[in-house]
C-alpha cells in the first residue's frame, strides 16, 4: 500500500524516539485522527469561511449566523450525528476534538439553530428551513466507469484522473464566465473525485429550482441502462457553452490523452462500444468491416488511426443523416464530458464533506485544488494522515504560536486556501455587508424625512 511505501521509504528520516520502534499501520486510525484534530485541522479558517464576515464587529454582523449552520459527524462504527451546530470557533474545535469524527459534513444555514429545530413549527410563520447554502457540485470518477478501462470502482490512477481535470476546467469556466460567480473552491474528495463549493452571496441564496436549473444546464450525459447512446446533441449547432467546452478542453483531452491512455479502439469490444453510438448502421458496418481487416505492421497507434477513420467517414459528407450531424462530438462528449451528481446540487439541504477532512479509506486529506493549475494536481501524491504526522514529528520544535500545519505538506494547501479563496471571499463579504447596511440606512433616512 502507498502508506507503507511512504513509511518504509523514509528510513533515513529523523524519527522521534517514540515512533522509531513502531511500524506505522496503514494511514488511518483513531489515534492518528485525534492527533490530526489536535494539531493540524484548520479550525480558524473553516470558521472564518462559514461566517462569511459575520464574526466581525460591524453593526450589520449577524451573530447568530454561524450557529445556524448545520454540521454532521460520522463517528467510528458508522454512528451518524445530524443537525449539530456550534456558536464559536472554540465550540467547533471542542466538538470536533471530543467526538473525533471520521467524516465531517457541512449542511445549510437554517432559519434557526438546527439543534433547536423541534421548537419550531413545520408550517406557517416560524418555520425551520434552510435559508442559505453554497452551490455545490460532486463529481465522482465511478460515474465514468462505462468509459474508463484503466480502473474501475474505487480505484483511480493517472490515466483516468485527467477526466477530473477536464471536469474542473469545464465547470469552473462556465461558473465564472456564464454565471458570473467569483468565489469558487475546488476540493479533492480524498479518494476518487472532486467537490466544488460556490460561495458568492448570490449563489448561497439560490432556490432549489435555480440550483436544479444550473445542474441541468451542465447536464449532457443522460445515462440509463436501456439506451446505447447516452449523449444526444440535437439541433443544428451546439450551444456556445458546449462549443467552448469542446474546443478548449474536451477535444484535446480525448484526442491527445484518452484515445491512448484508455486504448479506446484497441479491442473489438471497445470498438463496438463506439460503433453503437453511431445511429446509422451502414456507417457502423462500413467501419467495422474496415477494422476487421487490420493491416499488420502499422507502427502508428491503432487508436489514433481508427479515430481518424471514424471522423473522416462521419464528416466527409458522404453519409447524410439526421443523427450523424453531431456524432463525432457526441462520441467525444460521451467519453469526456463532466458527469455531475445531480441530486447533490439540486437541494439546499444536501450535506457535503468538509474540506480538510481525512478520507477513512485512503488516509488522504481533502485538500483544495487550484483550478488554474488543475492539470498539475496528482491525487497519488496528496498528503496522507500518517505522512503528515511523520512530518510533524520530524519537523522539530517550531516557535510558540506557529501554526503546526506550516511545518508539514498541509501548509501549502492551507496557504492556498487562504490566499486564493478565503481572503478574496471575506473582502467581498465585507463590502457587500457594508453597502447593504448603508443603503438600508439611507432608505430609512428617506422614509423618515418629511
Amino acid at each position, binding site marked *: 500500500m502507498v502508506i507503507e511505501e511512504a513509511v518504509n521509504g523514509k528510513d533515513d528520516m529523523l524519527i522521534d524516539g517514540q515512533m522509531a520502534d513502531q511500524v506505522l499501520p496503514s494511514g488511518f486510525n483513531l489515534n492518528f485522527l485525534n492527533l490530526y484534530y489536535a494539531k493540524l485541522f484548520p479550525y480558524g479558517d473553516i470558521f472564518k469561511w462559514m461566517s462569511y464576515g459575520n464574526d466581525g464587529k460591524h453593526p450589520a454582523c449577524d451573530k447568530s449566523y454561524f450557529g445556524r449552520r448545520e454540521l454532521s459527524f460520522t463517528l467510528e462504527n458508522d454512528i451518524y450525528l445530524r443537525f449539530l451546530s456550534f456558536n464559536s470557533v472554540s465550540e467547533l474545535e471542542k466538538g470536533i476534538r471530543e467526538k473525533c469524527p471520521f467524516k465531517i459534513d457541512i449542511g445549510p444555514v437554517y432559519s434557526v439553530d438546527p439543534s433547536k429545530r423541534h421548537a419550531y413549527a413545520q*408550517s406557517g410563520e416560524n418555520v425551520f428551513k434552510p435559508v442559505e447554502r453554497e452551490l455545490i457540485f460532486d463529481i465522482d470518477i465511478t460515474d465514468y466507469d462505462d468509459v474508463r478501462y484503466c480502473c474501475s470502482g474505487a480505484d483511480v490512477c493517472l490515466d483516468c484522473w485527467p477526466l477530473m481535470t477536464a471536469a474542473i476546467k469545464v465547470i469552473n469556466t462556465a461558473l465564472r464566465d456564464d*454565471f458570473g460567480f467569483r468565489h469558487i473552491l475546488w476540493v479533492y474528495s480524498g479518494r476518487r473525485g472532486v467537490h466544488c463549493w460556490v460561495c458568492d452571496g448570490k449563489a448561497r441564496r439560490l432556490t432549489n429550482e435555480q440550483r436544479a*436549473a444550473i445542474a*441541468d444546464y451542465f447536464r449532457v450525459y443522460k445515462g440509463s441502462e436501456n439506451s446505447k447512446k447516452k449523449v444526444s446533441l440535437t*439541433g*443544428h*449547432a451546439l*450551444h456556445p*457553452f*458546449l462549443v467552448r467546452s469542446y474546443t478548449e478542453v474536451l477535444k484535446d483531452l480525448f484526442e491527445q490523452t484518452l484515445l491512448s491512455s484508455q486504448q479506446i479502439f484497441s479491442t473489438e469490444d471497445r470498438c463496438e462500444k463506439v460503433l453503437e453510438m453511431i445511429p446509422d448502421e451502414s456507417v457502423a458496418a462500413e467501419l467495422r468491416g474496415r477494422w476487421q481487416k487490420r493491416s499488420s505492421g502499422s507502427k502508428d497507434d491503432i487508436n489514433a488511426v481508427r479515430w481518424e477513420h471514424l471522423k473522416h467517414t462521419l464528416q466527409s459528407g458522404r453519409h447524410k443523416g439526421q443523427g450523424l450531424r453531431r456524432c463525432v462530438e457526441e462520441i467525444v462528449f460521451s467519453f469526456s464530458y463532466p458527469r455531475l451528481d445531480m441530486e447533490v446540487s439540486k437541494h439546499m439541504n444536501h450535506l457535503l464533506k468538509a474540506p480538510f477532512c481525512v478520507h477513512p479509506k485512503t488516509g488522504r486529506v481533502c485538500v483544495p485544488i487550484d483550478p488554474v493549475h488543475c492539470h498539475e494536481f496528482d491525487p497519488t501524491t496528496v498528503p496522507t494522515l500518517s505522512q503528515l504526522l511523520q512530518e510533524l514529528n520530524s519537523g522539530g520544535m517550531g516557535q510558540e504560536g506557529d501554526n503546526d500545519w506550516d511545518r508539514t505538506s498541509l501548509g501549502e494547501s492551507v496557504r492556498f486556501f487562504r490566499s486564493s479563496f478565503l481572503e478574496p471571499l471575506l473582502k467581498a463579504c465585507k463590502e457587500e455587508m457594508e453597502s447593504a447596511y448603508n443603503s438600508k440606512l439611507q432608505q430609512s433616512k428617506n422614509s423618515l424625512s418629511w
Partner: protein
Amino acid sequence: MEIVRRPQLKSTAIDRGVPTLPLYRSAPSLEVRLEDFELYAIDRLRVLTGISDGLSRGKRPEEMEKLVAELWKANMRHPQASEVMNKDIISHFVLRLVYCRTYGLCALSLDYCCFHFLAYRVRILAHREDLRKWFLSMETALFRYRFRLQTAEAQRAVLAEFQLPYKAVTTSEFEVIKDKLTLVARSINQTLPTADAIFYKVPFQEVPELVAGRRVFLSDGYAYVAMNQVVSLVATQFRSLLSKALTLTNRKWMSTIREQEKDRLTPIVEALSTSYVGPDYSVGREFGEVSLKDIDNVAKSSFPLCMRHLFDKLREDHHLKHWGRMQLGLFLKVLLNSIGLFMEFIWNISKLPHPLTLAFTCYLSNPLMQQPMELGVGLKLDDALAFWKAEFSQKVGAERFDKEYAYSIRHNYGKEGKRVDYTPYSCQKIISLTPSVGDHHGCPYRHFSEENLRAALCKMGVNSGGVEDVMDKVRHKHYQLACTLTFEAIHGCPNDAGINHPNQYFSDSQKILKSKVKCLRISFLVTSVIDLEFPPISTVHSLHP
C-alpha cells in the same frame, strides 16, 4: 369590487386602454350581478378544468395553445363585446375567493364538538390545500398560453405592466454577442435573430427553465432572452404575484368577508369549491341495467381500479369507513339505477340481511319495469322507505329504523343535512383524497406501493408490458393516464377521451362489453323472485354469501 343585485353594469376597464391580457393585480371597481357572480366563475372553472385535463394528457405547448384558445372562445365570451374583459376579471377574482382558503378554517371548525366531524373538516381542508395549488398552477398556465397568443405589441405592454427591470439589449451590445445568439437559436431550432431583433438582458435566476434547457446565451450572470422566450419570464412573475395575492385574499376572507357575506356570497363560494365541472354523471344515462347478481361480474370487468378495490374490501370486511362509503356509494348510486338497489347496498354494509325482496317489490311497482330505468323515475323514496320500514320494523323496531337507517338513506339523496345532492366524485377529486390507516378510498395509482399496484394490475388482467407502461405513468404522477392505459390494456382498444371520472370508465367499458356480450336484464331476476314467491329472508340471504 361591489356585488349588487341590480341588473346594470358600469365598466371602466376597457376605457382605460389596459392591455387585453389583464394581470389581476387589484380588484377593479365594478358592479356585478349576483347571478353573474356564480355563472362567470363556473365558465372560468370550465376553462381551468380543460387546461388541467390537457396538461395531464401531456399535450405539447403548441397543442395547449390551441386548446386554450378554443376553451376561452367556448366559455368566456359575452354578447356585449365590452363585457368580455369584465367577465375575465370578475371570474378570476371570484375563483380567488373560492380557492384561497386553507388551514385557517381549522380553528373555526372547533365548534363542531364531534371528533368525527373535525376529522372530516380536516380532510376537506387538506383537499383545499391541493386545490389552491391547482388553481395557482392552472391560472398560471392559462396566463402563459394567452400571453403566447397575444401580438408582440400587447406582449410588450404586459412586460411594462409588470415593471420588470430588464433592459433591452443595446445595438452595440448586440453586435458583440450576435454570433453567440445565433448559435443558441440554431441549437434549439429557432428562427435566427435579425438585426432588429429585440433581446432582453435578465439575471439568470429569473429564467430557470431557459437556463436548464440551455435555451439562452449566458454571460457573466445574465441571460439573453429572445422575445419569444419572454413568456417564461412573465409566467414566473404572474405566478408569484398570484401566490402572494392568494395569501392576502385568504386573510381578508377569514377576517371580514366570510362573515359579512354569509347570506349572500359565502354559500355560493362554498358550493363552487366542491363543484365538479365536467360531464354530468348525476343522472344515470343509458347505463343499462345492472342487477345485483351482475354486480360482482361487472366489478371485475368494468370497475376502475379505485372502485374495484373499495368493492373488494367491502365484500371482504362487510364494512367501509366514511370516505370509502362516499366514494363507492356515489359511484354505485348512478350505476345501480334504482333506489332499491342502492338501498340494498347500504344495507349490505350495515350488515343486515339482504333485502332482495324489498328491492324487487320496488321494481314490481314500477309500471315501466320492462324498460331501462332512469334514476328518479319509478318508486319515490318516501314510498320505498315506508315499505322498508314496514318490512323490517319487526326485526329492528320502527324507532331504531327511523333513528339509524332512514337518516343515512335520506342523507345520501340530499334530503338531509346540507341538502345538496352529492354528485359522484371525479378523478380529480378522488386523486386529491388521501387515505390513512384503515381507509381504502383515494386513487390507487397515487397511493398504492409499487408492489401492490403491480399485483392489483395483474389481478385486473393487465399483461406485463402493459403494467410497465402504467408504472411509467405513475412515476411521472400522471395518474389518470395510468388508469386510461389500464382501461386500454384490459379492453384491448384505445380510449382517446382519457379517463376523468369513474362512471365514465364504467360506461365506456360497458359499451365495449355490451357489444360483445348480451346483457343481463332485470327481468331475469324479477322472474326468479316471482318464482321464489317472496321467500323468507334467510333463504334469500344465502343466494348472496
